[in-house]
């Protein structure tokens, strides 16, 4: 979609986090994880969220991805205030707007690479044939078309993450969220994954928000945001 969006300089941010607070309650204790966060990500951007453990970067990512809700403030992604959606609306919204890349790939072990990639398409109105074709195309993009029938246990870590990336973009969401995508990989595989993400951003116009510890990974992003104790540093 977003090739055009990139060309529009004044485009509204695809991710708009406004004055967000997130407080967890543990017994009587309240823990403020995010405090007054404001973050605008224009379409086609590649952002790295950095910061020490416990700084709240994964929590912020979860809010943007619509799998968690802010205690106060607004998270508007792709034009929708995700905090206002019901549980089932939110599930439907995620399937159309967000692609997930996890640190440990999170492929379903009993499904083949192609079936894993096909999963998000089960939530669309595509026919079985169309689903299969699109899944294969996505696998081609990540260079694993020849592994379509393999199960996750038959793939290397790097290959698993590439299948997971294919799964993340197969339904053509505007935003990809990645939580330490290279955290479990060796240097060479990490490099391949980062190159793939760069290509998705550059060639397919995907907006990427990536949480990472790894400075080399962060360098690939256009912008880096640093979180510390729940507050964004410039």
């Amino acid at each position: 979609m977003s090739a055009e969006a990139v060309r529009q300089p004044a485009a509204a941010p695809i991710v708009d986090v406004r004055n967000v607070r997130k407080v967890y309650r543990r017994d009587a204790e309240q823990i403020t994880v995010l405090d007054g966060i404001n973050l605008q990500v224009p379409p086609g951007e590649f952002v790295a969220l950095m910061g020490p453990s416990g700084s709240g970067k994964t929590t912020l990512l979860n809010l943007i991805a619509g799998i968690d809700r802010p205690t106060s403030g607004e998270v508007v992604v792709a034009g929708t205030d995700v905090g206002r959606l019901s549980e089932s609306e939110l599930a439907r919204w995620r399937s159309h707007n967000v692609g997930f890349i996890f640190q440990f790939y999170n492929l379903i072990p009993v499904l083949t690479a192609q079936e894993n990639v096909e999963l998000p398409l089960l939530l669309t109105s595509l026919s079985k044939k169309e689903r299969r074709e699109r899944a294969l195309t996505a696998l081609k993009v990540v260079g694993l078309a020849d592994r379509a029938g393999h199960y996750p246990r038959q793939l290397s870590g790097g290959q698993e993450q590439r299948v997971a990336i294919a799964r993340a973009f197969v339904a053509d969401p505007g935003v990809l969220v990645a939580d330490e995508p290279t955290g479990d990989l060796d240097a060479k595989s990490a490099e391949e994954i980062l190159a793939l993400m760069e290509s998705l951003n550059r060639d397919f116009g995907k907006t990427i928000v990536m949480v990472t510890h790894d400075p080399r990974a962060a360098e690939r992003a256009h912008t880096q945001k640093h979180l510390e104790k729940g507050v964004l540093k410039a």
Partner: protein
Amino acid sequence: MPLPISYNVRNVRTRWQVSLLAVIGIGLVVTVFVALMAMRTGFTLALRATGEPGNAMVVQRGSASELTSWVPLDHRNKIVVDQRVAVGSNGRPLASPEIVVVGAMPRRSDHLPTNVTIRGVTPSAFEVRGGIEIKEGRTFQPGLDEVIVGKRIADRIQGLDLGATIPIQRHNWKIVGIFTSRGGAFESEIWGDLDTMAGPFRRQGGSNSLAVRLKDASTLESFDRWIRDDPEMQLQAVQERKYYEDQAGGLSATLLFLVGFVSLTMGVGAVFGAMNTMYAIVAARTREIGTLRALGFSRRSILFSFVMESVILALAGGLFGCLLAFPINGFSTASGQTPSFSEVAFAFQITPDILARGLVFATAMGFFGGLLPALRGAKLPITSALREA
């Protein structure tokens, strides 16, 4: 669109070790259920197969069985000439007066004595009762001390062999034939000539019962009313098939209660077993649940998927249980708990209906066993599910 069922089937297959205990647990319950149902069906069928739809049994009012009933000769003569009674090929009424006694005989299996029904009949019994077939030897000769023996009881009682002589009421009777009666209760009886048996059995001047064929089965009610309205006769007419079915009533109901009670208590145990397994499965797949929810699958599809998986497990158990129960199909046994206190032999009957009920029962166990674990899985917050190792 929900998650495909193949996903559940593959999970069951991949984690078969975890699933095995639940499958076996549910399977054994289904085995017991099918076996008990087969027993009840076999017993009911044995008694239901006894009797022709157009036949009426004339017995004494208030008698619990033929043993305690008495139809005097003069009443019999009055009844058989009624116009509603059919006439046989020889021009005589199709009516079969019968005397019934019970004798104790040793079982082949444990040599312990059990009660066997001995029935004295006239040659017209074969035409009236219908379905009697001599399988070996020949039928008895009126006037001679000869008997024929039902196939089922011949298999169960010591000494009931073709050509052998057996003592009944201080009289020796020669076995000249073995007969069947379409699986009915007569196959658990010994038959001989009425007039020859009346003396030694002290059953002269009448019969215990009178079976008559009606020209038209729908006249049974008026036939019964006519008999009841006669102040001299303390008799009634009952449809033959119903008469024997009612004899089964007590035991059949007891068996049904037993099926229900045993299946329910064991079923509750199996449901807890399945629940335990499903909780373990949900716990092992927590991160997977988080991933699926993040991808956009709703809580409802997660709930449905895990209930489905539990039902698949239970159905596998159900099939296993049916297979395990199958060898008892046709296995013969007997019950002495009949109103005439004598053995009625019957075969365990596993019918498609029983197997279907067994599978439905398994499905129900799977559903209830899977519901709470599936709810737990569906309710997990995505963020904490994703954090699970």
